[in-house]
């Protein structure tokens, strides 16, 4: 069995993986909230032993006692009951109410959401209707009406509230499942012969885990508010202590004991606050996709200074004869911070000149840094990227040094044709709107002129019936047409240079041939310069006049297209060529 060469068989070091709980504890906000909530639960569990008195023990001397008197830390209420003890006992009811709400709403909401999202059909219609109806019901009013039926019964009231809040889980879970059920890995699991229950358990449930956990902390916060509110309105059992009843009692006696209201109010608001902040911390931990991190300004400056010191020794070659060069990249160095805090350089001092009318191919495998150069010339590198040095010169002016010059050049002088045509069109606007918006942003045309010019250009890029296509939305056109639309947008402003990042990789060969033909014609007719980033040597042979071969952030070979294909000097270029020729038709 032939394994791939070392490059493919060896694995990179795995990024540090930490468990969610560890990450949460390292987040100060998460740790603090978690500690506070743990305290509430511990107090609730141990109050029969820890509380100074029972929940209903009255002591006449303590009635309306201010805080810190006679062994009553938080004072006493109008009936002479110790407020601290009542709050401690009351936390039992709060915790129980929370557990009921959470249990009922998660079981009902998540289960129905999973079934509706995975199987759809009639169940989804019925469940969707039911959830709409339930969400329209006013919760508190319903709970008050329920009181007439059940009397003061917090568990029943909380169960009903759990049912009322279940639709939030239902909607959340259903939407996530709808997305996941179309994932190829779910199809693969089906083909592998997994039963539906297993697919849901293994693949679908994992996807809904994070949003459900985050939602839960917000539901718990709402639950505490509802439980306290219901008790405060007097719908709870007056015989048992709860934060709501303590608040109500203290509120009734507010003229006799001003401090009494503070304690239950604090307990309720702090717990709700802790839950909501915990929810935010959880969503930071669970939903962050942060593999690479943005550097702090200080680390950024340090890295730049170090790079400049390195650069001081060497001088890059001066640009060639300036008159016909459109764009000149000099000693460009790009780096990314990696997960372990190191700075990893992905482009090591690259020089690149593009002349008028030249189509310059930038070839290499994925990870060779070819797209990074393209993005740098457009000033659209990701935020965490670090330009360690070098310049991008347009008419002798360094675009990297001056953000405003870059902004002035981008879209006007330098245009971009992306790899994925579909994801580069906004699905909520028609083709015509997007094109004229882009064109009018960089020119002084009015709407009518812009439209007229664009219709002409759409016709030029080979779109039949351009007037009709202007009124279509992106989902109504094919991938090949979308790429033509984007090319039209790129040339509309009269740019001198087009940066095309794998412009045909997402297209099939037939459409690819047509798009390549179009790019060739545009370059010839308008004297356009082009940087074509691709891994496909067939495309290079078809379109390019000059080729730069990239490997691991260096340009290893550069020559005109005939020389590269007929007499490649570097072993790497030869390897690329032989791989390419092994999978193509050489016969004519």
């Amino acid at each position: 069995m032939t394994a791939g060469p070392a490059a493919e068989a060896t694995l990179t070091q795995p990024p540090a993986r930490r468990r969610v709980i560890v990450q949460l504890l390292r987040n100060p906000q998460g740790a603090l909230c978690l500690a506070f909530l743990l305290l509430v639960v511990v107090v609730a569990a141990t109050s029969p032993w820890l509380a100074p008195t029972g929940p209903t023990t009255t002591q006449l001397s303590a009635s309306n006692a201010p805080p810190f008197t006679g062994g009553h830390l938080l004072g006493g209420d109008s009936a002479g009951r110790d407020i601290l003890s009542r709050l401690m006992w009351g936390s039992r009811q709060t915790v129980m109410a929370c557990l009921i709400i959470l249990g009922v709403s998660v079981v009902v909401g998540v289960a129905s959401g999973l079934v509706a999202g995975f199987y759809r059909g009639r169940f989804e219609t019925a469940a969707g209707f039911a959830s709409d109806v339930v969400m329209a019901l006013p919760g508190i009013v319903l709970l008050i009406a329920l009181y007439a039926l059940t009397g003061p019964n917090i568990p029943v009231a909380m169960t009903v509230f759990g049912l009322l809040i279940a639709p939030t889980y239902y909607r959340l879970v259903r939407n996530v499942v709808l997305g996941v059920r179309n994932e190829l890995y779910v199809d693969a699991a089906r083909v592998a012969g997994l039963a539906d229950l297993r697919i849901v358990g293994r693949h679908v449930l994992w996807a809904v885990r994070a949003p459900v956990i985050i939602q839960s902390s917000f539901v718990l916060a709402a639950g505490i508010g509802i439980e306290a509110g219901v008790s405060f309105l007097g719908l709870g059992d007056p015989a048992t202590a709860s934060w709501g009843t303590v608040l109500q009692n203290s509120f009734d006696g507010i003229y006799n004991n001003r401090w009494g209201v503070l304690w239950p109010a604090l307990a309720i608001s702090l717990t709700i606050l802790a839950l909501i902040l915990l929810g935010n911390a959880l969503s930071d931990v669970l939903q962050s996709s942060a593999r690479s991190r943005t550097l702090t300004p200080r680390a950024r400056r340090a890295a730049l200074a170090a790079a400049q010191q390195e650069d001081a020794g060497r001088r890059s070659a001066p640009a060639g004869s300036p008159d016909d060069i459109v764009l000149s990249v000099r000693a460009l160095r790009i780096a990314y911070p990696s997960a372990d805090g190191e700075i990893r350089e992905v482009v090591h001092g690259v020089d690149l000149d593009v002349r008028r009318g030249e189509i310059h191919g930038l070839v290499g495998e994925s990870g060779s840094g070819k797209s990074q150069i393209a993005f740098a010339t457009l000033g659209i590198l990701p935020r965490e990227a670090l330009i360690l040095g070098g310049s991008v010169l347009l008419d002798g002016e360094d675009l990297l040094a001056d953000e405003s010059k870059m902004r002035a050049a981008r879209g006007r002088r330098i245009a971009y044709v992306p790899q994925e045509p579909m994801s580069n069109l906004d699905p909520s606007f028609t083709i015509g709107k997007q094109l004229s918006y882009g064109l009018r942003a960089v020119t002084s045309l009015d709407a009518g002129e812009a439209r007229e010019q664009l219709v002409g250009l759409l016709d030029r890029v080979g779109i039949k019936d351009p007037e009709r296509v202007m009124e279509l939305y992106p989902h109504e056109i094919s991938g090949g047409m979308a790429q033509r639309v984007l090319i039209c947008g790129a040339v509309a402003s009269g740019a001198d240079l087009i940066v095309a990042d794998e412009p045909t990789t997402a297209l099939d060969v037939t459409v690819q041939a047509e798009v390549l033909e179009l790019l060739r014609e545009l370059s010839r007719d308008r004297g356009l310069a082009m940087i074509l980033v691709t891994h496909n040597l067939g495309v290079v042979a078809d379109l390019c006049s000059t080729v730069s071969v990239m490997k691991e952030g260096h340009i290893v070979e550069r020559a005109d297209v005939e020389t590269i294909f007929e007499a490649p000097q570097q072993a790497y270029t030869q390897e690329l060529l032989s791989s390419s020729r092994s999978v193509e038709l050489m016969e004519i």
Partner: protein
Amino acid sequence: MTQPTNATRPTDKNPPRTTSTRPAHPASAADSQQELLRVRDLVVRFPGRRGRSTTVIDGVTFDLAARETLSLVGESGSGKTTIGRAILGLAPVTEGTITFCGETISNISRAARRRVARDVQVVFQDPYSSLNPAMTVGDILVEPLAAAGVEGGRARIRELLDAVGLPADAATRYSREFSGGQRQRVAIARALALDPAVIVCDEPTSALDVTTQARVLRLLKDIQQSTGVAYLFISHDLGVVNSISDRIAVLHRGRIVEVGDAHQVSTAPRHDYTRRLQMAAPVADPKKQRERRELRAALLSAAEEEADAPPMAQH
């Protein structure tokens, strides 16, 4: 519906696995000619808006023999992927039949489909979304084994990883830690896990760059040689297809326009559409590519003239 009778399955598995309930069979010359998969008059329609339906596949018939690689080629929208999905039970079969070793596998119950899983597997196009990012490679590979009730999973996983050229410690890593080519190797290992007779390869290399593409194609060939698996290979690139196929079927608008020996179809195509497809694939040689480009332009203008000639043709 009965389970496909495995006794008729022509496979030779190097060392017969004791864990398998299936008897291993030595291959013979006669066996290799036997057809495994038979698709007859396949029609797939998807319901559209306002009661109108779109016919994606319009009467497609072909056979796939053991140890054979049959490729389906066509441009996007030609229905090639849908045929693969219909065979895998992921797309509805409106008319026609698909049989595997004589047993119908189109429109069967979910339970019956799960039994087919042992014999018909898949490698999808996109190695990024076809592997669950939350699972380790080991868990991904053990999944089909567990579903089929095969024991001794861990040893089998080492065997599979070795077969696709990945180190044994890959099993404990998450798929997101791998490159595109490595992920596709994992997907191939998953397809191989149950020793299938047929693997549907749905553009397995089109998301990969050229060096990786060549390596993955070589791996697929090597696997075929050692396990005797048959491939239904789906691609839009006649070049890729030519390097791996025994036979090629060219698909255009849901119909097969040409089918034949791989060499013949890719070098001396009979149908005009195949000719255009052939000329569309660029070659890594500027001079030859220029000639091909001119040939393609000539073909296209000829086709246009033809279309223009009878004024009734357009509607």
